[in-house]
């Protein structure tokens, strides 16, 4: 089916004239009509506008004016990212009537590349506080199993991509919010280097750790998307004016001669680790070794401390953003988001400075540990995917994932599926991290692993048809 094809394949069909952008958009809208009433990933659809844009793209392509690989390909946005004239609610009643006048920088880039905007995707309220239970919209369902969590906060983005409702969605990642749901839903999620992708027009949560990145069904799609998104934005003070690599040029170069740092101690000795995860991770290590890479175990800085620092910064920076609304309209927040943000009220300015000092030292430790390697491989989430009714697991979800160190350091980090659990039938994943602004190398290793592990075309069973 057209909706299940990866972005790059659809793009090639469009360029060869075998499929039109209108047919692609129609297929995507049909899939959404079929799956979204159950999975609840999309909260806003621009179907008619999307078809009009697709017809325009078709004319341009027929006239020989091909803008690039995203021309005529549908995309969707986490509802934290602005599209002019369409509400950005952040899944909160606080913002339900707010409509931006301008596109976020990333939205504008995708539209300039000829991609077709489809709609907005549900998020945890203001990207924090766990799966929404009393926010503006409910949490989406995991297309692999309605009984298991999607994780968040870019849950709608992960669900929509996994279920074939859109080949490209954007997410945001402050404490793992792209990589966590990507892992649980079996898609590829990239948190680029801090400063690589503009955050202008994206609602902030904790600005010193906020990142925007693409979520796709395979590594090549992700690289093509980041190619359109990466670059300098003079109106984002954190944006870096550095050259952008060609992310697909060396993608098929293999891993021979690369030095891979392995961070595995932390989950090999944790009784909560899913043995299926470890098995898939080791299969990845074997594949890298067979491909000629050199593997070296490297230490991770104290994970509990990394998590404490990252969670503290999120609390403090998030509270700083929300304090006026928490004072004036607290009744408009859902309980999970409000509780999470209010934690920040109890920190002092001195606590913030301590957190930033510790952050600097943790970054130094991570840099020292990885100085002799080209890429780090580690887990993303390493416990079995929790059930939605498991409140203990929900409260402790941050303990069994290795995302926050790379939010603190700002290094690029990419999550890819590593297989499917033979126990519960849910996707497994692994994480690659690299030196700042070396996303191309991450894509090269990720592509190799994806081919070696056979995870380029994971599809969830279409069980959502049977979900009541």
């Amino acid at each position: 089916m057209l909706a299940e094809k990866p972005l790059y394949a659809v793009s090639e069909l469009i360029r060869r004239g075998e499929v039109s952008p209108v047919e692609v958009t129609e297929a995507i809208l049909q899939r959404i009509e079929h799956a979204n009433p159950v999975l609840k990933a999309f909260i806003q659809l621009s179907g008619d506008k999307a078809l009009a844009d697709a017809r325009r793209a078709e004319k341009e392509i027929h006239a020989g004016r091909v803008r690039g690989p995203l021309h005529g390909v549908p995309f969707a946005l986490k509802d934290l990212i602005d599209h002019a004239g369409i509400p950005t609610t952040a899944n909160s009643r606080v913002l339900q009537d707010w409509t931006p006048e301008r596109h976020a920088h990333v939205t504008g880039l995708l539209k300039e590349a000829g991609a077709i905007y489809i709609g907005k995707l549900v998020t945890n309220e203001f990207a924090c506080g766990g799966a929404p239970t009393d926010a503006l919209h409910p949490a989406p369902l995991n297309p692999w199993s309605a009984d298991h969590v999607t994780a968040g906060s870019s849950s709608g983005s992960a669900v929509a991509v996994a279920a074939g409702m859109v080949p490209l969605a954007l997410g945001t990642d402050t404490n793992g919010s792209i990589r966590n749901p990507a892992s649980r839903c079996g898609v590829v999620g990239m948190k680029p280097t801090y400063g690589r992708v503009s955050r202008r027009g994206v609602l902030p949560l904790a600005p010193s750790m906020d990142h925007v990145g693409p979520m796709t069904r395979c590594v090549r799609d992700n690289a093509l998307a980041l190619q359109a998104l990466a670059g300098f934005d003079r109106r984002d003070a954190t944006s870096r004016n550095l050259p952008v690599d060609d992310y697909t040029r060396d993608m098929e170069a293999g891993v021979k001669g690369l030095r891979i740092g392995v961070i595995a101690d932390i989950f090999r000795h944790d009784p909560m680790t899913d043995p299926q995860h470890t098995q898939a991770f080791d299969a990845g290590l074997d594949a890298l070794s067979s491909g000629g890479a050199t593997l070296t175990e490297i230490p991770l800085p104290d994970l509990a401390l990394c998590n404490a620092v990252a969670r503290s910064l999120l609390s403090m920076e998030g509270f700083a953003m929300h304090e006026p609304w928490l004072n004036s309209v607290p009744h408009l927040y859902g309980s999970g988001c409000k509780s999470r943000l209010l934690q920040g009220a109890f920190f002092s300015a001195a606590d913030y400075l301590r957190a930033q000092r510790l952050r600097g030292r943790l970054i130094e430790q991570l840099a020292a540990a990885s100085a002799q390697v080209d890429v780090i491989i580690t887990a993303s989430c390493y416990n079995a995917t929790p059930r939605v009714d498991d409140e203990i697991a929900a409260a402790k979800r941050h303990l069994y994932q290795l995302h926050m160190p790379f939010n603190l350091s700002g290094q690029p980090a990419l999550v890819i599926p590593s297989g499917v659990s033979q126990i519960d039938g849910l996707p497994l994943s692994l994480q690659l991290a690299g030196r700042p602004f070396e996303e191309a190398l991450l894509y090269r290793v990720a592509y190799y692993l994806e081919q070696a592990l056979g995870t380029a075309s994971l599809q969830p069973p279409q069980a959502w048809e049977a979900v009541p």
Partner: protein
Amino acid sequence: MSVSDDRPTQDMRQPGPPGLSHDQPAAAMLPSRHGDVFKYWQDKRVLASDDALLRCLEQARECIEQMHTALSCREEAFTHVHLEPTSQKTDAG
């Protein structure tokens, strides 16, 4: 989401000021700065219950204590570092 399972147990608690006990009303349990903040949000009735607000405080304190412990250890280590001058001596005149 329930955060109740994330609460530190009584045994894990750092010693607090005199009278800090789960048996007492929430606002009476807190050190002064946290007590003031607690009372401010309590008076605004921003959360459904005092217990919910107390859980926010406990989660914040857990992070604060972890950071304090880590920094005090590191600062102790830092006192043993002897910095060496890196600039070359120059001949005056």
